[in-house]
């Protein structure tokens, strides 16, 4: 009887420790370099095994104020510029994403699944779309408009998914019918009843698509030609050209941004969105 349970089998004895080991190694692999980057950004040298010369803010000053060497720019101007571009993308995403999410969540129509696939699967990744933009809108690339419309297409799926998850938790038909029977026209129902009810999803979607647009590198790298570099290009310039610890500080600025966004999402209480970002 006892051998039927095979308590002595290899997987019973070593299975759980093995799975836990994989988990621990994965956590180390993903989190350790992030911590090291942040810590070393306050160090003055890193020649040996560990960074030394704590605590200095010189690296952060170089990043935030700028070193003034060559065409180097401070993070401030890049951050402001990227914020603006990404906000432009978010505005477009709101205009296109909320309606299509509602159409898919509320109505049943021919080709609905395909509309959904197009709305939530990215059509082409950044680099491919970048090549296409370079060919099609060569004059726009210097003004940032190309970046805005590119960002909005690349990040639209995240907006649609976040808003959809909000819509799915609402009884849309009932809400719509109540408002209609009380005399509201359909556009008014949509704008003043449906949209405010999906507030959580809309805010979460905006934050996510904003962050991802600000972080988009591949598309920006191909399309960007001159002027203030977007944040991702700024990071790239720091990683490839600046000293190692300056690069660590620049990457840490980005980490702080993501941390702020994660906290913001947690405050709104959209747990699904937190996982997705």
């Amino acid at each position: 009887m006892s051998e039927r349970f095979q308590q002595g089998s290899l997987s019973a004895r070593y299975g759980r420790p093995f799975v836990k080991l994989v988990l621990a190694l994965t956590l180390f692999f993903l989190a350790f370099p992030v911590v090291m980057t942040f810590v070393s950004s306050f160090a003055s040298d890193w020649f040996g095994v560990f960074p030394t010369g704590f605590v200095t803010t010189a690296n952060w000053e170089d990043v935030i104020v700028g070193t003034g060497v060559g065409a180097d720019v401070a993070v401030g101007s890049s951050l402001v510029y990227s914020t603006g571009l990404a906000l432009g993308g978010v505005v477009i995403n709101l205009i296109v994403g909320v309606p299509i999410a509602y159409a898919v969540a509320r109505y049943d129509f021919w080709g609905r699944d395909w509309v959904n696939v197009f709305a939530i699967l990215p059509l082409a990744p950044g680099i491919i779309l970048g090549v296409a933009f370079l060919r099609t809108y060569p004059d726009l690339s210097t003004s940032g408009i190309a970046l805005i419309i590119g960002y909005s297409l690349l990040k639209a799926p995240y907006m649609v998914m976040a808003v959809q998850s909000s819509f799915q938790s609402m009884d849309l038909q009932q809400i719509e019918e109540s408002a209609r029977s009380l005399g509201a026209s359909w556009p008014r129902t949509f704008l003043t009843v449906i949209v405010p009810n999906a507030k959580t999803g809309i805010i979460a979607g905006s934050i996510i698509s904003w962050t991802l647009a600000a972080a988009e590198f591949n598309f920006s790298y191909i399309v960007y030609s001159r002027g203030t570099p977007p944040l991702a290009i700024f990071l790239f310039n720091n990683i490839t050209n600046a000293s190692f610890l300056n690069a660590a500080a620049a990457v840490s600025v980005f980490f702080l941004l993501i941390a702020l966004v994660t906290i913001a999402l947690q405050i709104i209480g959209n747990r699904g969105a937190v996982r997705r970002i």
Partner: protein
Amino acid sequence: MGADHVSTDTRAAESVQATLKSLVSPASERQREIRRIVALCIPFSILLVFSGVFPLTEMFRISFSESRLVTEGFTVEYYRTLVTDPYYRNIAFNTLWFAAATTVTSICVAVPVAHALEKYALPAKSVILTVLSFPNSLPGIVAAFMIIILFGNTGVLSNVFAFLSGQSRIDVAIATSVGGLFFAYIYSMIPRALLLLRGTYAEVNTDAEEAARALGATPLQTFRYVTLPQIKPGVIGAFILVFRTGLAIFGTVLILKGLLVWTLQIDRELAQGFNIAQASAMATVWFFFVFGFTVLALRYTSAEVSI
């Protein structure tokens, strides 16, 4: 025959007219609903056409152009280069095997991690979840920097390996080799695979697993014959998604340069002499390959796919 043709034409035209008319001034509730659906889909369609379909079409057209900077004439020269030149064939081969190998590795890591997250009582679980999803929002260049931290010339693991093997740490630093690139790829792939697999794991029927264990199956047998068939759609979905991601990775390779892959070569075509026709041909091939791969994979497997 001719008359038939004409009447089909007029009938089609009439039906189009009728549809348009019903959209502009709907007569029934159903028609009004259709008008609403169309109105809701229009903004997205406009964005899709202007920033997606139109640029991609222009890209497709210039890849057949005889002139370098404007679309003129018709030639398949650039595609012939891609097929016949061993240089490009080699890049295609590199891209495919590398993306496939990293995809398989990251799924092999993500399945046990998702298993542990779902089944085990873990301390500080919300912290673990945050750490595991954090890299999802990092661009590829930051993933590359993380690998430099771990495996670069002064990298932490380089130091450990140097200590263990007694070699100089410069000799054991692998950040800019194929190995370093491998880790950089899975750095951004594991969290993405986890996202999907955790969703799948949440729906696994635990009664069946308990029954299997009670009937005497070992944990491994339970996983192999009870859990794995249930998570199979998620695993296939994760494979499709992560493989697509792997083919699109560019920033990481641009920094680490361990292997010449398709996306890096597209950038080189542009950087060295702005050969946009060749770059467009490569981008077009990429687009149709991934599009076809996704459609076929979704059609012939039971995969679950979201972003």
